[in-house]
Structure formats: structure tokens, C-alpha cells
């Protein structure tokens, strides 16, 4: 292809003198340059080269496979949405919201379902996208305004679903290569994905109804392979929260019983920059009749109780442990506290989002809730929160505040 350039003729707006001067100059001609195929292809040429839906020939694809995988994914994403919202609102409850302190293992189960279910979603999602991939190349790409909206929402659904499982997996692998906060992005994207999912299910429901028959042999084999992959990833990870399958948890990102005193540590005292001052005292202050200030010896002299309570991490793992210490409600009775009071538990830790946590009446009045001084029969290791830590039933691990130094009654 040939491009020619020449000096522009003087414009009318330029002065007369300049125009005559320019007209008298010899016409310059830029050298002729041949540009080899540096031109960007037009959209039409791209379209001609792009694959066509009809050319994807794998017989294992098809409506039936897509429908069955879609049903499984619908259940998986609904479960993840519900359990995810529970986790979010347990950690950030609005004022009117009251979570019960029982059953003890409720959060352990819902968060296990969220994380292990999320891991199980990956093979389902990849298989589903493979099954419908030819539709990505359908012609015409857009048939009508309605079709454009539908495809746009499919993009939102696919992008959101991939985004959620990717960021979720990175989070439980403690890898944060992204330029946004995981919690906010994962939480708000969940609404986008679930909204797009409702619309997609509505749009595709007729197809699901007509094709949700027992699949033919080859496709049945494909679905069985996907189910097997899903089963393998569940069985090899669920042991990080479900004790009986612990020996099989070879792919689990966390070994819950590896750590000091037989319990793993998410944030060590060193990582939290915590050191316990020599004159440590626990203060109970705020809306109390008798403010308290107690040394470790004072705490140990109070009636001691033992609770078997799990640490249930937001990252899906959990571990049973036996804690001994002072019942929080005994301590508050000593200080004289109203029954409907809320507490703020403050840590020696000053940095990080989990240096304090709030405790509502159902949790502080539960007899299992302790300010623990001992773990599994030994004085609490500093990485587990020495001198004392909060431990309560049905509560995310990040809210089981360590290195407690103040209990403020609000």
C-alpha cells in the first residue's frame, strides 16, 4: 500500500502575503514510502477470520451438558451468596441485627460450605464455560437490542463468576496480587453476580426444563468426569474443617493443627507487633458500676471454666481446642453491667483491622464465652493471645480477639 503526503495548501484564513509566498514555493513532495501491512485489520476482516460457532465439533458439548452444569452452578453460587452474606453480616452487623451464639458450630459450618463449596465450583464453572464456549463466537454477534442486553449480562455473569472464584482462591492461598481490597471487592461483586445469575436462570429456564433428562452415554461420561473432579477437590480440601477427612486434606491450604499448642496461627505476635508490658493489667471500663483493673494473677484467681470451642476461620479452616479462663459474663457481673450492653474488646495489637471487636449480649452472656488464659492445658502461647484472649461460640476467628487489654462497655 502506498501513502502520499504533500504540503497542505494554505488555508483561506491565513494572511494574503503568506498565501502568495506559499503559492510561489515549489511544491514539495514527501518521498513515497511503502508500508508493509502495518494497517490494523478492520472489524469485518477480523470477523471473517474469527472462529465460527458451527466449527466447534466436540460432541460432548450441547444444551444438555450445559443445563446440568448450569443447575449445579446455580445451587453452588446461591449457597456461596447466602453463606457469604452470613459471614459478612456476622462481622459487620447492622444495629438491629442479632446473631445467636448457638449452635456453637454454625459459623464453622456456613463458612466451611462457603469456602469448600467455592473450591468445588471451579471445575463446574470451567466445564460449563467450555460447554458453552462456541456461543461466544455466534454470528451475528448481536441480533437485536434485547440480544445485546442478554449478551452483556452474560458477560457480567461470566466475568463476575470468574472474578469471585479467582479472588476467593487467591485469598485462601494468602496471595494478594490485586490492587483492591479483597473483602470489599468480593463482597460487592457478589451482588453483581447474583443479580446477573437470577436474570440468566430466568432466560435459560425453558432450556433447562426441556433438556434436564438423563444424559446420553458420552455426555453422561463427561458429566461424570466433571463430578469426579469436583469430588476430588472437595475430598482433598474439606479435611481442613471436617475432622474425619483430615488425613485426606492434601490440597488444603491450611493445616489447622500445625502450630504452637496444637493450633495454627494466622497472625503471630511478631506479625502483629505485639509485646506484653511487664505491668500488664486487664481493664473493664465504660458503662460499668465498678471499673476493674486485673493482673494476670487476679484473673487466674477468679473462678476458672473450661470450654471446648473451635477457631473457625473466614478462610474456611477450623480447629477444635479446649480453652480455660474466666467467663466473660462473670467478669461483667463483677463490674456491674446492664444486660443489654454491647462490648468493645480491645487488643494490645494496634495495627490491622482486627485489633478490636464488638460483642453483643447473646455472645457475652453465653456461659461458654471466656477470656481464656489457657489453651489445651497450657498457659496461652503468645501467638495465641497471651495473657488472655476472647473465645466465644459461633463467631468468626478474626473476631476472637487476642492479647485483650481492655473490655469497654458501650
Amino acid at each position, binding site marked *: 500500500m502506498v501513502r502520499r503526503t504533500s504540503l497542505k495548501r494554505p488555508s483561506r484564513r491565513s494572511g494574503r502575503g503568506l498565501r502568495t509566498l506559499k503559492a510561489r514555493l515549489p511544491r514539495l513532495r514527501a518521498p513515497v514510502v511503502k508500508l508493509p501491512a502495518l494497517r490494523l485489520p478492520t472489524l469485518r476482516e477480523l470477523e471473517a477470520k474469527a472462529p465460527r460457532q458451527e466449527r466447534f465439533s466436540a460432541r460432548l458439548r450441547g444444551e444438555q451438558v450445559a443445563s446440568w452444569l448450569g443447575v449445579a452452578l446455580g445451587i453452588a453460587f446461591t449457597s456461596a451468596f447466602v453463606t457469604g452474606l452470613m459471614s459478612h453480616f456476622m462481622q459487620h452487623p447492622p444495629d438491629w441485627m442479632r446473631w445467636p451464639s448457638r449452635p456453637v458450630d454454625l459459623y464453622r459450618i456456613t463458612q466451611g460450605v462457603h469456602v469448600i463449596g467455592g473450591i468445588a465450583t471451579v471445575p463446574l464453572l470451567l466445564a460449563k464455560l467450555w460447554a458453552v464456549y462456541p456461543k461466544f463466537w455466534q454470528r451475528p454477534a448481536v441480533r437485536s437490542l434485547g440480544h445485546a442486553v442478554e449478551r452483556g449480562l452474560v458477560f457480567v455473569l461470566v466475568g463476575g463468576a*470468574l472474578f469471585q472464584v479467582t479472588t476467593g482462591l487467591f485469598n485462601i492461598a494468602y496471595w494478594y496480587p490485586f490492587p483492591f481490597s479483597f473483602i470489599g471487592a468480593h463482597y460487592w*461483586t457478589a451482588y453483581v453476580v447474583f443479580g446477573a445469575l437470577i436474570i440468566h436462570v430466568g432466560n435459560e429456564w425453558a432450556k433447562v426444563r426441556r433438556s434436564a433428562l438423563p444424559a446420553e452415554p458420552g455426555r453422561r461420561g463427561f458429566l461424570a468426569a466433571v463430578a469426579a473432579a469436583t469430588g476430588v*477437590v472437595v475430598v482433598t480440601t474439606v479435611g481442613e474443617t471436617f475432622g474425619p477427612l483430615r488425613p485426606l486434606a492434601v490440597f488444603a491450604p491450611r493445616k489447622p493443627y500445625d502450630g504452637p499448642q496444637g493450633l495454627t496461627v494466622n497472625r503471630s505476635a511478631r506479625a502483629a507487633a505485639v509485646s506484653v508490658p511487664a505491668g500488664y493489667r486487664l481493664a473493664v471500663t465504660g458503662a460499668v458500676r465498678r471499673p476493674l483493673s486485673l493482673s494476670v494473677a487476679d484473673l487466674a484467681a477468679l473462678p476458672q471454666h473450661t470450654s471446648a470451642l473451635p477457631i473457625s476461620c473466614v478462610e474456611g479452616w477450623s480447629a477444635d481446642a479446649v480453652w480455660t479462663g474466666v467467663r466473660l459474663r462473670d467478669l461483667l457481673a463483677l463490674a456491674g453491667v446492664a444486660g443489654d450492653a454491647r462490648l468493645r474488646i480491645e487488643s494490645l495489637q494496634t495495627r490491622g483491622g482486627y485489633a478490636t471487636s464488638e460483642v453483643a449480649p447473646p455472645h457475652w452472656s453465653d456461659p461458654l464465652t471466656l477470656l481464656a488464659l489457657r489453651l489445651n492445658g497450657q498457659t496461652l502461647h503468645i501467638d495465641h493471645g497471651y495473657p488472655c484472649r476472647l473465645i466465644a461460640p459461633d463467631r468468626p476467628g478474626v473476631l476472637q480477639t487476642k492479647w485483650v487489654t481492655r473490655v469497654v462497655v458501650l
Partner: protein
Amino acid sequence: MKRYLLGLPLIALGAYGLLTSVNVIGWAVWFGGVVVAHDFILVPLVLAAGVAASRVALPYRLVLAATALAGAVALPFVILT
């Protein structure tokens, strides 16, 4: 239309939250990035692997597929943790 009445407000709520409390540019790069990575890198690789595996008898091919799927999930944990 009921599905749009249910779905669009949820999408709008999520979009509002993303715009007000998340680095939305970084978010958008990742949101589009995972789609591009999936549709233009991962799937073509899978299709190529499928062609390469087409000589393998079907039952064994399905075993290969299941292994690859499970491996795709497990690999990050083995590498990263």
C-alpha cells in the same frame, strides 16, 4: 420481566458498592482480565489439548479431563502454600 426486576437492582447495588468503596479501576482491570485470560488463553489451550488427546480412547480422555480439572484447582495451593 420479573427476573429483571429482581436481578437489575442487585447488580445496581453491587455496582454502587464497587464505585463507592473499592478501587474500581483496578477491579475493572481484573474483571475484564479474568474473562480475557479465560476466553483467549485458557480455552484455546484446552482446545489444543483436546485435539492432542483425541487419539486417546474416550473413557481415558475423560479421566485426563477430570485430572486436569482437579489439578487446576489444587495447583495454586501446592505452589503458594
